[in-house]
């Protein structure tokens, strides 16, 4: 991750997918976190990660949201969010309803993009909660107060902002009360249930989705059928699917939220041509894309306001300003061959944007070095073409069964590429889906992109050293000792990105200290120093290097360095001081000048004049 100020100079061909990144930025999301703050949320606890410690449900909910806010500000800073507690002692909302408290910080609307201050203060919410907001059950049998109803209403009012066509609107409801009206008289209960469900339905009719994140008691599972299945509109089929192990642990909850907060976005709609006369519809999703610190905005250093950047193309001969599109040239055969921008784009257009199946190969044909960029995930859709999913699943199953992948030609990228479609079976764990079922589209290099490095290192007729049986055995022992048992691909946070955002947060909040970020990518020193590990490494080392403590004996000749040294022998050839005095250094070749520089340990970079000046300065001393 380079902090590249010259991003603007980027090659026009680069990153054809950046377009849909931008598209993503434009579409935004409005989220309201609704957190039940009833006393029950504080009294119920779950075992925490650290043994012997219990954590309250309220703490779990709040920590999840805090984490989620941080990922919002980093990844999706256009999203607008609001945080709203219900079953509170104090009230704060536009409608002035009892038992609902919309949490906010100065210089921010109730629903707005997250700010550093919001994150900071929300991190400390548990300390101030009792004083400022307070917990109090809002639904009591002898009043007609209904805090859940009010909460939905407040949330809906917040979400009135923005058009539902261009933005996704969602509520996340955190609660551990599966039967909010359970202790009411039957007639009141029915009435309250009916009005609350009606409210929820109105909300959903407005295109707002309600997502439930229930927390279970240690001794009693959250029973979704009592009330909430109707509220979120689950039918009986979906019910069984609905999170089998809801909210047992903090980690599970974090996982759940992380997965659900990100709205699924289709990166590309793809037509998959299986054969002439049979095309199905697929959606492509970018499930893996490098996260970057975001582009640089230039600011006026006195006002800190964004600066308007204007790019202009200027003809160096006349100083005239050129208008887009500008012709391009390629010097070739002593002439300048001209291309218009249109012509160049026609050259690149060699097929439709479709994905065309060409055939199948065994998985062993997919070499480790056939890779160029992150893959795209494909999942079928019956939205436009009915029958797509069926054909896709059939191929998917066959490919897994027969251990084959499909080779296809994809015209949707520049340049169009040969791709491998690798079927991925669904993988599930306790926390939910680990790998979704579908196919991963891997972009294959062309012959022109692959380099023959192995050949460079072979010595004809000379057998390369190969490990002996004993060395292999020691290597095997080493590998067993150093095995990472449950390694998962994305377990490391990006250290530079973490650091970058820590810096931003500190500056945004005017703090003097940047909070330390941990570099998770460093080796586990403790583990590496375990005696058994040290011994295994020592044994392997012994088997390779023998007793020789100095590890390496050079087998081959050091060609490069010897050549350089040979050059140094010549430096007596000229009397540089004399040449410098008479101003004749410029008559020497660059190579000859460099000989002097090398001999005197001076830098070798730069044009001839620079080199001469460097020598003059050196002699002058």
């Amino acid at each position, binding site marked *: 991750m*380079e902090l590249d100020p010259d991003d603007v100079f980027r090659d026009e061909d680069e990153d054809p997918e950046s377009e849909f990144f931008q598209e993503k930025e434009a579409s935004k999301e409005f989220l309201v976190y609704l957190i039940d703050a009833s006393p029950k949320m504080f009294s119920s606890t779950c075992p925490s990660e650290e043994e012997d410690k219990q954590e309250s449900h309220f703490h779990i909910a709040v920590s999840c949201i805090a984490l989620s806010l941080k990922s919002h500000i980093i990844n999706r*800073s256009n999203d607008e969010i609001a945080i709203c507690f219900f079953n509170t002692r104090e009230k704060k909302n536009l409608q002035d309803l009892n038992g609902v408290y919309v949490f906010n910080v100065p210089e921010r609307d109730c629903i707005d993009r997250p700010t550093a201050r919001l*994150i900071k203060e929300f991190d400390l919410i548990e300390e101030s909660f009792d004083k400022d907001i307070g917990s109090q059950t809002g639904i009591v049998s002898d009043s007609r107060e209904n805090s859940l109803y009010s909460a939905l209403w407040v949330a809906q009012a917040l979400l009135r902002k923005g058009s539902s*066509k261009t933005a996704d609107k969602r509520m996340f409801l955190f609660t551990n009360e599966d039967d909010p009206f359970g202790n009411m008289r039957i007639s009141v209960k029915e009435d309250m249930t009916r009005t609350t469900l009606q409210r929820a339905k109105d909300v959903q009719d407005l*295109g707002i989705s309600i997502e439930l994140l229930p927390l279970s008691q240690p001794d009693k599972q959250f029973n979704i059928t009592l009330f909430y299945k109707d509220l979120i509109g689950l039918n009986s089929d979906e019910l069984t699917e609905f999170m089998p192990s809801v909210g047992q642990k903090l980690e599970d909850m974090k996982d759940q939220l992380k997965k659900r907060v990100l709205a699924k976005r289709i990166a590309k709609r793809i037509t998959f041509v299986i054969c002439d006369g049979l095309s199905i519809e697929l959606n492509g999703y970018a499930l893996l894309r490098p996260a970057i610190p975001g*582009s640089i905005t230039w600011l006026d*250093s006195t006002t800190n306001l964004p*600066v*308007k950047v*204007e790019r*202009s193309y200027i*003809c160096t*001969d006349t100083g005239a300003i050129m208008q887009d599109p*500008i012709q*391009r040239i*390629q010097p070739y*055969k002593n002439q300048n061959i*001209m291309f218009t921008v249109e012509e*160049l784009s026609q*050259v690149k257009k060699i097929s*439709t944007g479709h994905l065309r199946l*060409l*055939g*199948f190969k*065994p998985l062993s044909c997919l070499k*480790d*070095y056939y*890779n160029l960029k992150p893959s795209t995930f494909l999942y079928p859709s019956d939205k*436009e073409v009915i029958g797509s*999913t069926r054909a896709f*699943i*059939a191929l998917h199953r*066959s490919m897994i069964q*027969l251990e084959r992948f499909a080779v296809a030609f994809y015209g949707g990228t520049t*340049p169009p590429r*040969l791709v491998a479609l690798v079927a991925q079976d669904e993988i599930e764990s306790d926390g939910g*889906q680990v790998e979704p079922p579908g196919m991963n589209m891997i972009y294959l290099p*062309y*012959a022109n992109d*692959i*380099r*023959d*490095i192995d050949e460079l290192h*072979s010595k004809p007729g000379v057998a*390369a050293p*190969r*490990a002996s049986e004993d*060395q292999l055995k020691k290597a095997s022992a080493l*590998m067993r000792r150093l095995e990472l048992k449950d*390694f998962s*691909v994305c377990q*490391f946070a*990006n*250290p530079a990105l973490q650091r970058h955002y820590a810096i931003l947060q500190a*500056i*945004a909040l005017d703090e003097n200290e940047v909070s330390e970020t941990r570099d998770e990518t460093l080796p*586990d020193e403790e583990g590496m120093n375990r005696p058994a590990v040290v011994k295994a490494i020592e044994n*392997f080392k012994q088997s*390779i290097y023998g007793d020789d403590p100095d590890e390496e004996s*050079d087998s081959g000749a050091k060609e490069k360095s010897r050549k350089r040294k040979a050059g140094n022998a010549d430096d007596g050839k000229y009397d540089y001081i004399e040449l410098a005095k008479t101003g004749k250094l410029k008559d020497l070749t660059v190579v000859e000048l460099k000989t002097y520089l090398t001999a005197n340990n001076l830098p070798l970079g730069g044009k001839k004049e620079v080199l001469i000046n460097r020598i003059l300065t050196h002699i002058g001393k």
Partner: protein
Amino acid sequence: MARNREGLVLVLDVGPAMHSVLPDVEKACSMLLQKKLIYNKYDEVGIVVFGTEETGNELAREIGGYENVTVLRNIRVVDEVVAEHVKQLPRGTVAGDFLDALIVGMDMLIKMYGNAQKGKKRLCLITNAACPTKDPFEGTKDDQVSTIAMKMAAEGIKMESIVMRSNLSGDAHERVIEENDHLLNLFSSNAIAKTVNVESPLSLLGSLKTRRVAPVTLFRGDLEINPTMKIKVWVYKKVAEERLPTLKMYSDKAPPTDKFAKHEVKIDYDYKVTAESTEVIAPEERIKGFRYGRQVIPISPDQIETLKFKTDKGMKLLGFTEASNILRHYYMKDVNIVVPDPSKEKSVLAVSAIAREMKQTNMVAIVRCVWRNGQGNAVVGVLTPNVSERDDTPDSFYFNVLPFAEDVREFPFPSFNKLPSSWKPDEQQQAVADNLVKMLDLAPSAKEEVLKPDLTPNPVLQRFYEYLELKSKSTDSALPPMDETFKRLIEQDPELISNNKSIMDSFRGSFEVKENPKLKKASKRLLRDKPSGSDDEDNRMITYEPNEKKIDVVGDANPIQDFEAMISRRDKTDWTEKAITQMKNLIMKLVENCTDEGDKALECVLALRKGCVLEQEPKQFNEFLNHLFKVCQERKLSHLLEHFTSKKITLIPKSEAADSDVVDENSGDFTVKQEPMIES
């Protein structure tokens, strides 16, 4: 010849058996020379052809023999003549002896460069190697080849042989072919030589490495198992995308009389406070800012320097894990190769031990790498074994970058098992699919693997260089059509299809698809696309309705016409959306800015309403109208409010658009669409 220049002799078989593929040989060679003209224009090239009627080479003149070998061009700096030459190779009449031709080529290289230029001298043989070679005057052919190969190795000449055999007829040649393959193998084991066997013209084009890139190490240093155990390694790029050359911008502003015009274009960036202002902010008055949520945080270069994440160069092992833990689709970037430092025998051994054991036990290594000091970030990646098949090549690792936690977006997708059964294939359908996956085979055991990436050329590059060549002859030449050879890359192989016709037919029959009838409006083009191969395919992509002037923005001048044109565009699904959004923005602008243009605003609102009824987008309109009403109230824009109250403008009710949630009676009552109060 200076450093980093190459001397190359092309040794081409033009005998009768090669005639059918010579056009492709010409194409491949011409591409090679074209790229040399652009990227390596000081490289030197010679051409030898064999199988010709006549004989014309120095060895034949000096010592006799070496018949039917003709030097088309002596080794000289690459120029346009040779690029032209190679496209008109002579068609030979006799079966040539490739060994003779190789010796002639080698002789040329030695005479030209002597012992200098080690490793920069290259022989490239393209033949079908199906013709018998002559017996040497003394010793066996094996001895002779070994001698030549050793001479090549000693002289530092590299050799690559491309053996093209697509449709060898009869088994009469079998013995000859076997012998020739054996001889070519002898080269491989005694010299820096490799043989590529290709069967299709497409692979032939891909087999010749047309762009010469000097390999540069990305990293030289230690692969650290722990602080006491280090392996010396070098890291190179194994895969790097070859792009089109970077074309310069050209200015035609200079008067034609100006002989010294450079025609260059300079890009200038002006930093201004506002778009209108003419005042330019000096570089030292600017500061970089990064977006953080709603804010843009300014950071000075000093702050960045002192606070940023700091790295130290090195490769550190984190541990080993089962290969199955790293799914293939997690590879993030182009691939590197990690080879042991060739001068350190112990490191070669250590890499060999780990790589072989990894392969044996299906394990991979996880490493953290910083390629150079001060690099902005560390990368975490996976080392997979690359156990060498050749005795003389050391074992190595491939390195692939893995994603960080922030790079992964875990969206849940419905499990296939839980989909409605009508969406799932039945047993018969599954059997048909199994059959297709089995039979549409691109890697049959008996034949070449088809479309192997290592042998598949980039069609866009091919086309660009072809176009460039045409343009160099005539500036207004048209873009050539896609080369026939590349059809194999873009479309299914007709032979494979016809061999499996029944399977294809039954697949088509078993999986019927149809357009979703409920889907209104645009984007129904999906199924209507003609089967491929039709010539207008390219055109169809860009021209939807050729005569229509395409409006893509709702302008201030004729907003209503623009809007109507745009909303009815069908070439993309999102035009309706765009049109509505732009119209709304325009109306808001009209309402907010000018008080006297109320009538124009009204017209626009009515047009929007009409459009939304036509496109069945009542919600869009109704929401907007509510919003507009509020704005008018707030700003007391009475003349517009009048229209509201006089019910000139109304919400779209159910009767006009089924999706609307406004009942007909209430269509004028947008004002009261407030929340019902709780009855308490």
